[in-house]
């Protein structure tokens, strides 16, 4: 009797362990490992004298707080983070209001500008702005001095400064404030404002007393996100801060990892502090969003009140136009001009214009094609593998009934708050030594990319999945379809748009990834962003500009091809 019942039990368990469960289980484990393993090494490494020596110490943390130079770099990170938050608010909020709520001409077109930062790497943005606002040779400074005051030798702008960094980051991350706020303004019940008008408040009072307080959670969440990204940004402070001797936590980490003596433990400790800081910002954001959910019963879908600005619309239009020029027009012009000159000079000489740098890239530099090939390879395969994993995780998180699913969700989303350079240190520590040696292969880049950017995919798929009612799947199961069959025939077709959007986003992110690649590449594995950085380090700004243009062209062509093939949009690109 007991034997039979035991056999039955085993049989039942085997029945439960079907293919679906196995896939879900193994992918969950994989993701947990890919995230927690490097993060674990970051912590372990930071409390050892050396990451791989079993001597434990807290001295690295103490050093950060006692060493004046390091302490100053900590506060520098704080300064640019806050500065970026404020600037992104100053830029993003008015644009959001103008686009979502006024009859400013062409305001819909300006929304597309918000996509620019998604398309171009921060590295490229910083590069463009050195061409524009280097104190002596920046094009804008040259123009100003030519027109207004030729007695000046340099200035008035100086991109090589803390203010330059904040300016670049603020411009770059303002679309987060803009997109979040515009979304909130659009989905807000217009009756809330109308009630205020009826109650005796004019438009301006209503804007300040009702509208802004109501979209405050959206604004703040955009600002906090911009701050998280600013705190973890490496390329911009590296390019713009170095000449001014202005270092931040991320550049310090890079420095510690690439100088003699290497100090990975201190780098890990600084990285962990940075992660604590970004997690604090994300925690505040989460709290704000859950508490302040000022969602309201929506009315019958009246268009939000479009404010007729009259003559003022020329002012708002100018503001938008200025924004478009500063965020897109000027940098593009600077890059194109720079890519066409042989060497940079205070004297603008047309005779120096030509395709030298492009010729060099495609006929002389052996790395160009290798790097483009590697970047495309990583982008295509990385995005495909990542969206596969993201989809399964997203499915488990939204459909799973286990008590572990919230934990999985939390861990899988964690890397979004870990800056690229910090995560790269963890990946390096984790995957350099046995038992898991991926160092020196394209594999370590793929693993790094996927574990760090999985949240992007999860978010895209989830946004589709939450719209698919579970009943659609349940009815398929009731109709006799298996878990896998349901997934293939019902769920996948329904979440396909989300997966496609996620794939596109990941593709673009991977194509221009820099923070992780910089720490993990090896000869033969160079990607385009690494080449860019090397050009910059080498002083080849003009070649870097040419390569930036090439990268942008490759990106745009890829997007066009992908859209032709799938009709997919980039997540967040839809207006």
């Amino acid at each position, binding site marked *: 009797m007991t034997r039979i019942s035991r056999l039955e039990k085993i049989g039942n368990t085997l029945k439960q362990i079907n293919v679906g469960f196995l896939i879900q289980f193994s992918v969950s484990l994989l993701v947990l490992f890919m995230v927690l393993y490097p993060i674990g090494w970051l912590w372990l490494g930071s409390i050892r004298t050396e990451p791989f020596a079993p001597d434990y110490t807290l001295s690295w943390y103490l050093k950060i707080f006692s060493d004046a130079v390091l302490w100053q770099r900590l506060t520098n990170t704080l300064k640019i983070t806050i500065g970026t938050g404020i600037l992104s608010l100053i830029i993003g909020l008015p644009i959001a209001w103008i686009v979502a709520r006024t009859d400013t001409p062409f305001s819909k077109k300006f929304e597309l500008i918000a996509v620019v930062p998604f398309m171009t790497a921060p590295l490229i943005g910083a590069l463009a702005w050195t061409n524009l606002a280097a104190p*002596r040779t920046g094009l804008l400074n040259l123009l100003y001095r030519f027109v207004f005051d030729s007695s000046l030798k340099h200035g008035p702008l100086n991109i090589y400064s803390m203010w330059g960094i904040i300016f670049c980051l603020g411009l770059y991350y303002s679309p987060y404030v803009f997109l979040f706020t515009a979304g909130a303004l659009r989905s807000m019940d217009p009756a809330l404002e109308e009630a205020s008008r009826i109650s005796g408040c004019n438009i301006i009072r209503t804007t300040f007393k009702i509208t802004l307080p109501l979209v405050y959670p959206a604004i703040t969440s955009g600002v906090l996100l911009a701050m998280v990204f600013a705190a973890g940004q490496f390329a911009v402070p590296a390019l713009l801060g170095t000449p001014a*001797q202005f270092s931040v936590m991320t550049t310090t980490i890079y420095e510690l990892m690439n100088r003699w003596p290497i100090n990975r433990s201190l780098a890990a400790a600084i990285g962990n502090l940075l992660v604590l800081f970004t997690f604090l910002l994300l925690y505040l954001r989460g709290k704000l969003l859950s508490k302040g959910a000022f969602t309201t019963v929506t009315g019958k879908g009246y268009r939000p009140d479009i404010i007729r600005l009259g003559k003022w619309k020329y002012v708002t239009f100018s503001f938008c136009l200025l924004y478009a020029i500063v965020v897109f027009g000027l940098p593009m012009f600077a890059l194109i001009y720079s890519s066409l000159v042989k060497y940079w000079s205070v004297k603008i000489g047309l005779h120096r214009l030509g395709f030298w740098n492009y010729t060099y890239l495609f006929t002389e530099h052996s790395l160009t094609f290798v790097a483009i090939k590697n970047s495309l390879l990583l982008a295509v395969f990385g995005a495909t593998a990542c969206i596969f994993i993201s989809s399964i995780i997203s499915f488990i998180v939204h459909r799973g009934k286990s008590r572990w699913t919230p934990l999985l969700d939390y861990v899988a989303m964690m890397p979004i708050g870990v800056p690229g350079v910090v995560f790269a240190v963890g990946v390096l520590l984790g995957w350099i030594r046995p038992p898991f040696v991926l160092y020196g292969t394209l594999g370590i880049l793929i693993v790094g990319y996927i574990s760090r950017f999985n949240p992007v995919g999860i978010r895209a798929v989830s946004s589709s999945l939450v719209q698919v009612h579970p009943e659609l799947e349940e009815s398929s199961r009731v109709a006799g379809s298996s878990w896998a069959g349901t997934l293939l025939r019902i769920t996948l077709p329904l979440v396909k748009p989300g997966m496609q959007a996620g794939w596109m986003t990941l593709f673009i992110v991977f194509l221009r990834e820099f923070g992780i690649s910089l720490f993990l590449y090896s000869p033969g594995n160079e990607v385009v962003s690494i080449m860019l950085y090397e050009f910059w380090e080498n002083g080849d700004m003009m070649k870097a500009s040419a390569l930036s243009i090439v990268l942008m062209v490759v990106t745009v062509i890829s997007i066009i091809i992908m859209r032709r093939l799938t009709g997919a949009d980039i997540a967040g690109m839809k207006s």
Partner: protein
Amino acid sequence: MKRKKMKVLSAILPVLFMLVMISSAYAQTQFDPKLISAAKKEGKVTLYNSGDREAGEALLKAFKAKFGISGEQYRATSNKVLSKVMEEIEAKNIYADVLCTGSPNVLRLSQKGYIAKHDCQQAKFYPASQQTEHYVNVTGIAMFIMYNKDLVSEKDAPKEWKDLINPKWKGQIVMPDWSASTSPLILFQMFKDIYDTEFLKKAGEQKFIIHKAHGAAANAVASGENAIAFEMLSDRIAVEVKKGAPVGYSVPTPVVFNPRQMGITKGAPHPNAAKLLMEFALSKEGQKIYNLDYWLYSFRSDIQYPPEMYPLDKIKLYDFTPKMWLDFTDNMPKLIEEANQYWLKK
């Protein structure tokens, strides 16, 4: 008839003689056929180079033309090359065959036992002070002073190291990052040796503009963004001059050479190809491609310098003895801290 023949002969003879002379010059560069065939079997070589990427590429191109072995290059600042190699050794996943970095990083790796004995035939053309059994100083990089001719007239241009502390250059001097490259640190060591701490302090008051690498610093001066680069490597100056950028340079006294060390990684994946590449780089032909074309000096005594290079015999060298190199190597972390104290903005 005979006379005529003699006439012809006398006309041909000098030509023949010259031909023999030339071929004998190349006859010196006889590479061991066994080594060549072993290297060809490996088929590939990877060079880790802290010098100019183009120079490395030119060397590898010539190497491929000569031996049919293709080469790959990893280029970074000397300290990044060092940390990269350390990582590979740690991962037991070595890609680096030949290392070529500014001093003293190959020396440092050899102290840790990570560099193989090179056993190079060409090494005998190099003075004993410029080599060990692990590496050979393949290049002498001269550190000069570079300036932008549009911003500084030739007359006003800084000529000597002491011009570094002239207050009129305050905020106009570019310095490569001494925590990323060794050259500025070598300069710092030399200043320590020949001047007093007051000099170092005054230099710090100039508020240096720091660039991550020499290339970026050179570009800043060439473009006119900054006026002067104190300590600029001769190969960077060559690149800017050849581009046609308005730069000039001064040769101060004494000049310090940063010797670029070349060695082969222990456990290199292509040891024979690595050795052949090192032989090639050290050969007269290799020296021309890797050094002379980039205004870099050679430690070989049998080198004819091109006329556009500043003549070696006019340079007064600051003698960094092997002992000094070892001390410098040991003291580097401390020196960086010290330089930070004097030269970083407060």
